[in-house]
């Protein structure tokens, strides 16, 4: 019944987008689409007792964790849609965006939202895999919409690396499918069934399939050896799109890894799996923060910081500290969206992302600079903002396993913080000689930044009780503590 509603909404939206002439209605409809998704799912969260199975053979099933992820995706999509209204208008104004692209942009935008909702609500791992593939394709088209030539190269890299790695996770699925047969005859890929019988499955086979699954979804969420597509595609894409990519699409990988890790954690091969996750996590934090140091391109710096945060989440997952990892996902999505939105405005103002030719931006775009500074201070993990608490607690559980690693990770976070501030200060305080006129920024681009700054301040100081209970329920279900 719920699936029917969503499909109807999607069809309606895509029809309107196809046939409407004016860009304003398209954008208006997209905003409505993401708003409706948020409303439906928050209604579901409050009213119904979870989990709710959507299809009869419960291929699609909504539990607290998936609704939590859907709501995060919905919020970011909503803000990005509001931001897109002004952003696309200025792109057209600059002739970087011709008429045909708009239809393609809004269509793939809405379909991406739809496939994101399906990914998070799919209980059957194969379905999860397929929808993840679809999101890859849709986000590739979104990257290509900005018809600058080198976007094609970035999109090509993105598609190739992600889909080849995802093939490996499909192999993992096949093995999981075969392994589940050995338990009670009928082989299934439904996560809830697998979760209940995960003790009986032979740990070795489970570990084997976990490794293959990990390869695929690590590529999806930009873990180090597989992350090479992320910086070029996020820095070349339109800021609106890269906010979506960094904030939400990367979460699919982390979501799937959590689902898989929870299966293998209680078994005898659990520690081996967590060691592998730990190795990859620390490798990611190391490589990403070190390669952030000499960046002059702002969006590439923010992209690398997403890679680093994904690595840090991986460390959190490996330590089994789920409560704070979930909170970290929310905080990271919000801060990343804020950073990319303000980077977008700065890009529109000065035409390039290189530190050299962004001139006296603080006078021309004070709000964007303020958003950038608040975002960068938040991403580093300073107190008044939400990332401070999860960072501290994850580091504590890391120190419980080994002090040296904790010191190492702290050093890399320090390098990341130093490089962030180095670029932000050089950017905002660069004085241009000649007078530059102020680029007219539409109000709709400013609203999401203000909303995000307010949310970050509130979240930083006040941890809402409802959110806390939700996260406790999810962690209770996932890890049972």
């Amino acid at each position, binding site marked *: 019944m719920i699936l029917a509603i969503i499909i109807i909404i999607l069809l309606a939206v895509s029809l309107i987008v196809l046939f409407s002439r004016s860009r304003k209605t398209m954008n208006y409809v997209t905003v409505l689409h993401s708003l409706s998704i948020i409303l439906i799912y928050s209604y579901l969260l409050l009213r119904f007792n979870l989990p709710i199975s959507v299809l009869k053979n419960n291929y699609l099933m909504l539990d607290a964790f998936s609704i939590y992820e859907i709501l995060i995706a919905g919020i970011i999509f909503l803000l990005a849609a509001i931001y897109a209204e002004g952003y696309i208008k200025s792109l057209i104004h600059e002739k970087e965006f011709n008429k045909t692209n708009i239809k393609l942009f809004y269509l793939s935008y809405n379909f991406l939202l739809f496939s994101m909702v399906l990914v998070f609500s799919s209980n059957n791992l194969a379905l999860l895999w397929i929808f993840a593939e679809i999101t890859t394709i849709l986000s590739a088209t979104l990257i290509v919409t900005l018809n600058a030539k080198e976007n094609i*190269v970035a999109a*090509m*890299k993105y598609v*190739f*690396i992600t889909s*080849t*790695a995802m093939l*490996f996770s499909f192999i993992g699925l096949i093995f999981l499918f075969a392994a589940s047969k050995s338990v009670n005859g009928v082989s299934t890929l439904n996560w809830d069934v697998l979760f209940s019988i995960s003790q009986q499955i032979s740990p*070795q086979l489970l*570990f*084997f399939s976990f*490794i293959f699954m990990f*390869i695929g979804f690590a590529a999806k969420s930009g873990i180090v*050896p*597989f992350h090479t*597509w992320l*910086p070029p595609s996020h820095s070349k894409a339109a800021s609106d799109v890269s906010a979506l990519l960094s904030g939400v699409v990367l979460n699919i990988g982390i979501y799937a890894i959590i689902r898989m890790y929870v299966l293998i954690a209680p078994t005898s*091969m659990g520690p*081996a799996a967590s060691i592998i996750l730990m190795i990859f996590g620390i490798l990611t934090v190391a*490589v990403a923060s*070190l*390669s*952030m*140091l*000499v960046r002059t391109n702002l969006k590439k710096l923010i992209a690398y910081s997403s890679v680093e945060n994904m690595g840090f989440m991986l460390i959190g997952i490996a330590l089994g500290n789920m409560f704070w990892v979930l909170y970290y996902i929310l905080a990271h999505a919000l801060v990343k969206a804020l950073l990319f939105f303000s980077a977008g405005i700065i890009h529109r103002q000065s035409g390039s992302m290189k530190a050299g030719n962004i001139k006296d931006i*603080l006078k021309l775009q004070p709000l964007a600079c303020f958003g950038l500074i608040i975002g960068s*201070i938040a991403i*580093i993990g*300073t*107190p*008044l903002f*939400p990332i*401070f*608490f999860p960072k*501290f607690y994850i*580091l*504590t559980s890391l*120190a*419980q396993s080994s*002090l040296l690693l*904790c*010191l190492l990770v*702290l*050093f890399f*976070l*320090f*390098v990341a913080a*130093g490089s962030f*501030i*180095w670029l932000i*200060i*050089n950017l*905002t*305080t660069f*004085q241009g000689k000649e007078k530059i006129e102020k680029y007219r920024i539409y109000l709709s681009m400013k609203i999401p930044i203000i909303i995000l700054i307010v949310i970050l301040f509130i*979240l*930083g100081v*006040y*941890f809402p009780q409802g959110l*806390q209970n939700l996260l406790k329920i999810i962690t209770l279900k996932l890890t049972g503590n």
Partner: protein
Amino acid sequence: MVLLITAVFLILLLSIVIPLIGLKLKHSSLRKISLILIMLACLISIFLSLQVLLGKDISFQIFVSGTAFSMLIDSLAAFFIIIISIVGFCVSIYSISYAEHFESVKKRNFLVSLMALFILSMMFVVISHNLLGFLFFWELMSISSFLLVLFDYEKEETKKAGIFYFVMTQLGTIFLIFSFILIYINTGTLDFTNTSLSPFLSSILFITLAIGFGTKAGMVPFHKWLSYAHPASPSSISALMSGVMIKVAIYGLIRFLFIISQQQLWWGIAILIFGTISALLGIIYALKEQDLKRLLAYSSIENIGIILISIGLYMIFTYYSLPAIALVALFAGLFHAFNHSLFKSLLFMTAGSVVNATHTKNIEKMGGLVKNMKYTSLLFLIGAISISALPPFNGFVSELMIFQVFFKSNSISSPLIKLILMISMSLFALTSALAAACFVKAFGIVFLAVPRSKEAKEAKEADKFMLVGPAILAILCMVIGVFSFQILNFIGEKAGVSFDLPNLLWISIGTFIIGVIAYLIIRNIGNKHSRVSETWGCGINSQNSKMEYTASGFSEPIVTIFSSIYQPKKINKPTFYDSKGVIFKEGQASLSLIKFFEEYLYLPPLKMVHYISEKLYKIQNKIDLDSFILYIFLTILALLIIVGVVIR
């Protein structure tokens, strides 16, 4: 009591918000209201901490984003709150008119609101009794001071100072986070409970704590940011930073030393040695400095060194279980921290009005300011006298207490320790004498004799509020100096410690009487009238500012005496008319001193990290797809091998 604390919190919160509301408002009424609010908050917190010092401690809890931070104001915290609020009070008076000197209205409002946030975060750092709470407000303090250091961001050197400051604080915070995690793992609770660790772990904990707080306080190996951040930030803020923020770091160090149970001997010696080195190097670098605010920044490093010496003595004497002397050493350190916060913020504020009047920080361009900046120079003189520890003022009392502790070191059993103490005592004496020389130079070159530039000649006296703030501090310096015997006996009874200090009150009364008698006798013996005429210039009648002694000239003997530390490099490039190099045409000579810490301690690791990141980025940034796929191929093979090995 808790009501008062919430009142203080709300008032400060209000003073943060008010200037932000009227960000664009031209007239300064909003700023004045918020500054008055800050003053009110400071007064309440002084009253509050006096209550705590007399009565019993206050403990309460505040809830920040879901986690409960337990707060406790005990006598140590109350003492530091007094420091914060006194300096905060005077700085807010000072910045009523100092803030008007900035050109854009937005900047003025931002200055006031960030200052309120800075004071709020420092107060809460001092009273928080919970690891996470301490870290929460500690980073809040660093961020607000970072934004304040970056205040007039147009100038190139402010940008460099801002980045350097942020990176050093971030480095310090890492070590703090690591030590807090170490404590949290061992004690299990986030509140301050004393931890007993294995000797190895507790010395790691000590090292990380020392580095964490040392970076913030400006201990020698990590002091370099101080000399960049203070000149770059506005004077009212550098008064707050070097007057108070450094003391909060010292508070942190003392608070956590109380927590660690078995302390080892080498800890005390390490703190003592680092303290002496920072004192000596601090004052030596201050002596060669031409930038007025950087000179004061380096002298803060010297005073921090002195406070660390007293803490080191406290730890050594507690190790040798001589509590009486140990407590005297601790009280000496705390009292010096209090005195230093008074006269250092006095000096920074007066320096701020001087820099505003002459629009330059270089003392070679100043001179003769005493003529038209009478009161500022008088206040600077009082600050200079008390910082070089001369008798009637408060600087002398704390250095006297430290000397007395040194003199009592005969009761320590091991000879090696006694030797170290003696050497550090002689170096300590050297620093206090050099401090006197440094501030004779600072006062003499800046205020006395002939003005060396046009701005110095036309410098106008700072307006009313910029004098009232420092004046309060000056009076405090004098009062505490003279009544030190009574104050310390009062504290001594409460804490059960006996200081045998000379009764400065009697001595100053004696001096006053002798002074009056001598003045009367001289007035009627001596010739009454006096005459003003040209300074003696060996016959040259027109005495111009070129013939006067300059700051580098003044410190040149000391630079040559301590040349092994300065490593001066004299470079002169003469050009001649003729090929043989006989008839001199023109030339350029310069004296550059070694920047030891920057060249040998900070830059090499930075270059190494840059090199690695350069190499790393090259690997990741290839144009073609193949190398990325190759990396993935190799990782998959590696993973499969691991799987093969793991699965038996």
